[in-house]
């Protein structure tokens, strides 16, 4: 199983905060997890930009995902100032 977390507008759009999913396939990527997440949520993200992290490290959509990983999806960050 993998743990999937959604933040900010991604969380609100999918109505998913956190869930557990089976690894989509042996050589799965972040993009595969995203697809499985949207299928599970029954919704497609309309976000123009999307960031992903695996085990709390920024990764690209084609990064590999392994069993036990924590995969997170969120929009571009906006911290640091007014």
């Amino acid at each position, binding site marked *: 199983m993998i743990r999937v977390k959604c933040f900010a507008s991604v969380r609100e759009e999918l109505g998913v905060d956190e869930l557990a999913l089976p690894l989509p396939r042996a050589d799965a990527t972040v993009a595969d997890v995203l697809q499985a997440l949207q299928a599970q949520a029954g919704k497609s993200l309309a976000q123009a930009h999307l960031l992903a992290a695996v085990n709390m490290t920024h990764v690209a*959509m084609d990064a590999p995902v392994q069993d036990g990983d924590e995969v997170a999806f969120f929009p571009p960050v906006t911290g640091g100032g007014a």
Partner: protein
Amino acid sequence: MIVKVQAADFDPQAEMDAFPPAAIQGAGGQVTFVGLVRDYSEASDILAMEIEHYPGMTERELQRVCTEAQQRYDILDSLVIHRHGRLLPTDRIVQVTVWARHRAAAFDACRYIIDELKTRAPFWKKEVTPAGQRWVTDCPGCRAGSHGHGHTHLGPAHRHRAGGEG
């Protein structure tokens, strides 16, 4: 190196005064950036800001940024504090302080940390208006004409908020 992510307000000077003196012995200069919630007053309808973050990753990413600053510039040490939760106009959001023997490295490293923080540290801001709430979208990758950090386009052009950063 000290990194804090907290809901409570902070006193920038008290945070600096509490920094371990041994770590910054020999400092000739100290540069501090403080980011504030802008007070738009009558020019806008923003009542408050809500800041969400990714507990665990946010702290790690800030520590990575500070470590990089230490490797790139001749500094003694650094301090980052960032708030989450509900903030009001003129509230402090973030403090970055860097100590160095010479001021040039302190300026460069402080700027590096806040610039990287704004593109990498998982924080998201929502504006609270009388009509409801809206996420701030302010994609630095788009602004710079490139798409860094692996983010991808899933939909049509998105709205950018003008003047949305400190």
